[in-house]
């Protein structure tokens, strides 16, 4: 009985196997070979497709492998700084991306956003990067880049929000990178107390951004210890001698320009006063002209302390932004 059952089971198994093979052969022979893509239409060499067209159903065979190869090619293009070609290819892939895996779709979107970011088109970059889902690791990278785009647009609250939604293990490399980004934003917003609390998490043990962590501490020191010169003192000094107030503010070339304009006019006005008298039209005209330049010199010197501060802060801000960007490049694009 048992032997009979084994024989019946074996026969039925053979039948199903054969019928499955038969179905497979039927499927193969039923394919319309005339409509198969030519060799040149194989993945990686697709022809006759406009960027706006969707890829025909039959060309989308082995799509995961195809998209994987295409993404490697995009990486090669980006590494070789051929951003225009990379964008062109990514736009095509984006049109065809229905047959890609979700992770590959995210990669396509991420790379498109990354190129926008690299070309400093931050609004477009945010628009694209925000479409990358958080399901895969590339979603983390997208959130970091999205955040720095907001920083460049000076929308610091949104930048922090984008960073805060990332789930990270405390003490991990990305967690510390996020702390660095938070601390950098606090420097840009001149919130030194927040920076102090965040910089306590800098361990300097990740080579990808340990230099930047040290730099941020230096920037913090420079920003917090910088003392703006007094506009009153600058104005008073320029009232005593034209241009000296700007020298006090920190400028070295412009004081000479101010002297060059004001001192000859002063000499002319004095001469007019001595020759024609204080109430003469000559003195009133030339003295008035000198007065305009003299007051302008005092006012300019008083304002120069603010412009000097602004210039120093702008330079530090540029350095902070650069030191926020470099670690992202090192961590996510190796």
């Amino acid at each position, binding site marked *: 009985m048992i032997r009979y059952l084994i024989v019946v089971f074996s026969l039925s198994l053979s039948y199903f196997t054969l019928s499955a093979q038969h179905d497979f052969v039927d499927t193969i022979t039923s394919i319309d070979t005339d409509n198969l893509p030519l060799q040149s239409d194989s993945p*990686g*060499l697709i022809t006759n497709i406009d960027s706006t067209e969707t890829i025909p159903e039959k060309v989308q065979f082995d799509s995961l492998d195809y998209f994987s190869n295409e993404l490697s*090619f995009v990486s*090669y*293009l980006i590494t070789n700084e051929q951003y225009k070609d990379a964008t*062109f290819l990514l736009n095509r892939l984006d049109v065809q991306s229905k047959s890609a895996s979700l992770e590959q779709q995210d990669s396509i979107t991420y790379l498109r956003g990354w190129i926008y970011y690299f070309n400093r088109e931050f609004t477009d970059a945010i628009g694209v990067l925000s479409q990358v889902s958080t399901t895969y690791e590339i979603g983390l990278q997208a959130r970091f880049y999205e955040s720095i785009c907001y920083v460049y647009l000076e929308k610091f609250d949104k930048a922090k929000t984008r960073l805060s939604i990332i789930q990270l293990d405390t003490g991990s490399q990305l967690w510390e990178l996020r702390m660095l980004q938070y601390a950098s934003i606090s420097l840009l917003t001149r919130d030194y107390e927040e920076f102090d609390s965040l910089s306590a998490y800098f361990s300097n043990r990740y080579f990808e951004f340990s230099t930047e962590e040290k730099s941020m501490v230096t920037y913090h020191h420079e920003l917090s210890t910088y003392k703006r010169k007094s506009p009153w003192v600058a104005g008073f000094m320029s009232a005593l001698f034209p241009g000296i107030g700007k020298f006090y503010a920190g400028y070295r070339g412009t004081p000479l320009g101010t002297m060059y304009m004001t001192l000859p006019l002063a000499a*002319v006005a004095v*001469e007019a006063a001595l020759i024609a008298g204080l109430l003469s039209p000559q003195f009133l005209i030339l003295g008035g002209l000198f007065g305009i330049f003299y007051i302008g010199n005092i006012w300019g010197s008083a304002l120069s302390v603010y412009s000097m501060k602004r210039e120093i802060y702008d330079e530090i801000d540029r350095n902070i932004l650069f030191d926020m960007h470099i670690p992202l490049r090192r961590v996510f694009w190796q």
Partner: protein
Amino acid sequence: MAQENKFEWAALEYERICYSTFDNRIRTIALNHKANCQLSLYNPAAAKKTMLRISYFGLSDSLVFTSRQKSAYASYLDKDFEQASSQLFLVDQFLNEEYQAEAALLYALALNELREWDKAKEKMLFWVSKNVDKQQTRDSLLFEIECAYNDDNFPKYRDPERASLWSTFIPGSGQLYSGYFWDAVFSVSMLSTGLGLAAIGIFVVKYYVAGIVIGYGLFQRFYMAGVKRAEYLAGKKNYLNERKYNTQLRELILKIED
């Protein structure tokens, strides 16, 4: 794709070949084709950049020649005449006379732009000697080349530094040296006005300081501007003369090639 004018896509596919192959010959051919696509897209700068990526190690002479010539052509279109000239110099150094003759006209065009007309003339004569068999035609072309490249026809070079120096010591003379008479007149008249105002202030109205300040102010501004202007005008004159002469030479070269 290139045949269907989809040059951007074709360029990308040629780049894909570079990406996927380890064979330098195939890579070189692909880069040549990519440069063709970029030239078709009127982007000689990109084509030049593409051609400069070629590594010439282990390539056949014909491929080296094609690549160097295309690189020179793209550089010439991109107005990088030094690069064009150096590419064709390498053709002369490392390839045989057949290739040198083929590249001679392009080399002559590049040398014209670099003011090396004597060398350009040599290249033209060389090209005629190698490519024109009929004696009568050859003599006629040689005569035309001799006439066009006669020393008397070379544009006179105005040294901008010398123009600047002339104007420093004798205001207006730099403009005259550059060939701009009315510019010189204007410069001298403005300087005279400045000196005149100073003289009136000092000797007539007795406002010494005002006379010096206003007169000197005007004089100093126009004096410094005149020195700079003379330098600029010398450069402008050189450019215009060279453009005119090289346009004539280019027409001659194109006529000879036909």
